[in-house]
C-alpha cells in the first residue's frame, strides 16, 4: 500500500493537470473552426461535461482527504500504544500461567514432603517425633503461602480484563470511522486490582516496608 502522504500529493498533482488541460482547451478554442468549436462548447457546457469535471474532482478529492485522515487516525489508534497494550496482555498471561504452575508444583512438593514425614513418624523414637511434628507444621504452613497465588492472579486477571477493554475501545473507535459498529459500548473492568501484583518480589517489597516502618518507630520514640 502507498503511503497516505504520497497519495495526497499525487491527487493534488492530478487535479492541477486537469485544471491546466481545461484552460488549454479554452485557449485553443479560438483557433478552431465553427463546427469543432460548437462541438467542444457543447461538451464543456452540458450537464456532467468538462465544466463540472473540476468541481467533481474537487469533491472526490475532499472525500479522499477525509478517508485518508480516518485511515491516519485509525493507524494512530493502533500504533505503538496499542502494540504496547498487546505486549502487556501477553506478559500478564505468561505471569498468570507461571504463577499457577509454580503454586501447583510447590503445593505438590509440600504434600510429598508431608507424606514422607508422616511415613517416618510411625517408626520414629519419641524425641524424634516432636521434631517431625514441627517439620510437618512448617510444611503445612507453607501451603497457605502458596495458595495466595489465587488472590494475586485474580488481580493480574483484573488488569488483563482492563487491557482487553481498552483494546476493544480502540478497535471500536476505528470501526466507527468507517461504519456503524454492531458492538455495544465498552465498559472497563472496575479498578480494584493492583496492576503490579506479582507472586515474586514480595521479599524486596517487604524489606522496604519494614525499613519505612522502622524509621517511623524510631521517629516516634525520639
Amino acid at each position, binding site marked *: 500500500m502507498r503511503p497516505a502522504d504520497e497519495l495526497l500529493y499525487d491527487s493534488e498533482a492530478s487535479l492541477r493537470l486537469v485544471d491546466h488541460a481545461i484552460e488549454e482547451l479554452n485557449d485553443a478554442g479560438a483557433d478552431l473552426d465553427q463546427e469543432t468549436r460548437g462541438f467542444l462548447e457543447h461538451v464543456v457546457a452540458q450537464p456532467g461535461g468538462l465544466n463540472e469535471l473540476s468541481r467533481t474532482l474537487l469533491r472526490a478529492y475532499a472525500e479522499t482527504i477525509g478517508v485518508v485522515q480516518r485511515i491516519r487516525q485509525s493507524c494512530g489508534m493502533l500504533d505503538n500504544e496499542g502494540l504496547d497494550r498487546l505486549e502487556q496482555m501477553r506478559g500478564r498471561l505468561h505471569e498468570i500461567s507461571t504463577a499457577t504452575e509454580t503454586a501447583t508444583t510447590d503445593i505438590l512438593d509440600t504434600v510429598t514432603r508431608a507424606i514422607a514425614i508422616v511415613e517416618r513418624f510411625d517408626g520414629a523414637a519419641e524425641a524424634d517425633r516432636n521434631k517431625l511434628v514441627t517439620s510437618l507444621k512448617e510444611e503445612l504452613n507453607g501451603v497457605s503461602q502458596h*495458595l495466595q497465588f489465587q488472590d494475586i492472579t485474580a488481580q493480574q486477571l483484573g488488569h488483563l480484563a482492563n487491557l482487553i477493554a481498552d483494546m476493544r475501545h480502540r478497535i471500536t473507535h476505528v470501526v466507527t470511522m468507517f461504519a456503524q459498529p454492531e458492538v455495544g459500548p465498552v465498559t472497563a473492568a472496575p479498578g480494584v486490582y493492583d496492576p503490579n501484583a506479582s507472586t515474586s518480589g514480595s521479599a524486596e517489597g517487604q524489606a522496604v516496608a519494614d525499613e519505612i516502618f522502622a524509621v517511623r518507630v524510631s521517629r516516634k520514640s525520639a
Partner: protein
Amino acid sequence: MKFLVVDDSVTMRRIMVNALQRIGYTDAVEADDGHDALTKFDASIGFIITDWNMPVMSGLEFARAVRATPEGHAVPILMVTTRGAREDIATAVEAGVNNYILKPFTPSVLKEKIDRLLTGSVAAA
C-alpha cells in the same frame, strides 16, 4: 482480642483467619470491602487486618475512616497487600496504617507483625 479481617478475596480471608486461629486468636469478624468493614467496626474490635485493593471502598479509605472515629483512633491496623512501591507504603503510613505485609506472606510473618503491634504501643509501632 477480636480481629476484623477485610479482604475481597475469600481465599485470603480464609488463609488469614486460619492463621490467626493457629496462633491463638479465634475471634475474627470478616468483611469483603472497606464499606462492609465500616459497618462491622465498633469498640469491640481490637485489631484490624485489611487489604488495599477492594471494590466499593479501598483499604486505604477504610483506614482513614477508622482513624476518624473515636473508637478507631488507637486500634492497630495491619495492611496486607500486593502493593510494594515505596510511595504506596508511605501513603499507607499517612492513612494511619501501623504496619504492612506484602503478599504472598508466611504465617510466621503475620504472627511477628501482630505480636509487634500488640506488645509495643500502637502509636510507636
